[in-house]
């Protein structure tokens, strides 16, 4: 899964299967093997209410750990985490949320130049609403809108088949060639690698997909159609 690739960057804490042991018992041993800092918490099927989760957070904080994000299969746990303001990923029980697709549109020159490991694509169907968040170690494709208050981030490109009105971060791990593409690109904020820009304030032109990328150190927004690119360019307000 795409989420597993995060392990290279952040250490993971995986709670034991429910039937084997309670996480409260195994936690001290597990923490011994990790170094204090940020970690991704994978809670699988543990159903945690706000109280359970905050006691877990306290336990971790006591040992010098911070939860960077929570991965769970339980909607209830996801809700608790959202209520506590933790970035959360609700995994589906079967690993179909992401599939690696071969890059068959060979017309796109930028995807050809990238190494194979980052062409892993995470697909999300449906609108991302305020407070929701997706992060992935590959490219991200959202079939739906990204509403104001929602957050998408990918180590590769962010592509949105819909309207982008939230915050998007492409090239999260520092890839300055990453792009953000959307049918309507009116984000609150755009980030590519370590560059940050506010979205444009003008009304979008209908029917033009737009793309944001880094050009000469600044984020620029242009029509995604390369033939139109020469004729018009829309500056992003820095």
């Amino acid at each position, binding site marked *: 899964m795409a989420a597993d690739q995060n392990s290279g960057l952040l250490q993971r804490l995986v709670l034991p299967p429910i039937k084997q042991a309670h996480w409260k018992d195994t936690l001290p041993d597990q923490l011994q093997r990790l170094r204090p800092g940020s970690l991704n918490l994978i809670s699988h099927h543990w159903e945690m209410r*706000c109280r359970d989760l905050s006691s877990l957070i306290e336990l971790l904080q006591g040992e010098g750990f911070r939860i960077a994000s929570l991965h769970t299969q339980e*909607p209830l746990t*996801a*809700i608790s985490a*959202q*209520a506590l303001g933790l970035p959360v990923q*609700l995994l589906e029980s079967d690993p179909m949320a992401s599939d690696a697709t071969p890059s068959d549109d060979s017309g796109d020159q930028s995807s050809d130049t990238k190494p194979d490991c980052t062409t892993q694509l995470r697909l999300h169907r449906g*609108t*991302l*609403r*305020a*407070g*929701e968040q997706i992060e992935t170690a590959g490219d991200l494709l959202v079939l739906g*809108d990204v*509403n*104001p*208050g929602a957050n998408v981030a990918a180590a590769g490109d962010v592509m949105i088949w819909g309207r982008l*009105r939230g915050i998007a971060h492409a090239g999260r791990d520092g890839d300055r060639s990453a792009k953000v593409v959307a049918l309507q690109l009116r984000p609150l904020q755009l980030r590519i690698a370590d560059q940050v820009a506010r979205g444009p304030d003008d009304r979008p032109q209908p029917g033009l997909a737009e793309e944001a990328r880094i050009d000469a150190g600044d984020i620029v927004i242009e029509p995604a159609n390369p033939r139109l690119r020469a004729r018009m360019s829309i500056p992003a307000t820095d």
Partner: protein
Amino acid sequence: MASTSRTILICSGKGGVGKTTLTANLGIALARLGLRTVVLDADFGLRNLDLLLGLENRIVFTAQEVLAESCRLEQALVKHKQEPNLALLPAGNPRMLEWLKPEDMQTIAAMLEKQFDYVLIDCPAGIEDGFKNAVAAAKEAIVITTPEVSAVRDADRVIGLLNTHGVTPVQLVLNRVRPKMMASQEMLAVDDVTDILALPLLGLVLEDEQVIVSTNRGEPLTLNGSSSPAARAYGNVARRLQGDDVPLIDPSKEGRGLRAKVRRLMQKKIF
């Protein structure tokens, strides 16, 4: 209709956008259509559905006593004075915070569903424990919002949470619409809101001073057949819930006709 009971959560995320007003008016409107309706006030910390319905002084027991089996459900249900089809059940009393659990709300809702056609749950503001309690009991939901950026943002967040809880269908009521401000683009347009929230629009309620008057009196607008814009809107929401195909009002045409002018004039004379 008695065989299938509908449990509908009325929520908004943000406070003060009109959840309780909608619950009270919708309850009355449904009851007037001849449907046995109960309104459940899940906001037990700061409950005021009873105030809007003018039933504050009649509450003896709450759902907490029913769950503790210190009274029967029939004793806790408060029948409305003028509208016998409508009953109110307060979830708890303000002194007993943090008493109810999501399972308790499910138990109560299941008891009510046996007796009523409609169970309307008035959700507290916010997305914390009170919201989770209320949402646990709900099967479908109405999200109410106003054409303001903050209310729409909170509604969006709540819709996301409703989706993760598997509450469906979720419909939208847009409250406190001011046609003039929309026309001059000083206020978010109806399309702007439905664009972001992407929900079917169940009703448009115009800003209406009569709502404040009726709230303070404890007599919901829909009760006495008032013809004020908000009263008609609430009535239409009830009919649409019942499957009637009532067209939505067009805010740009509202308040222009001769009838509307006469009505405004009359209201000024009377009050």
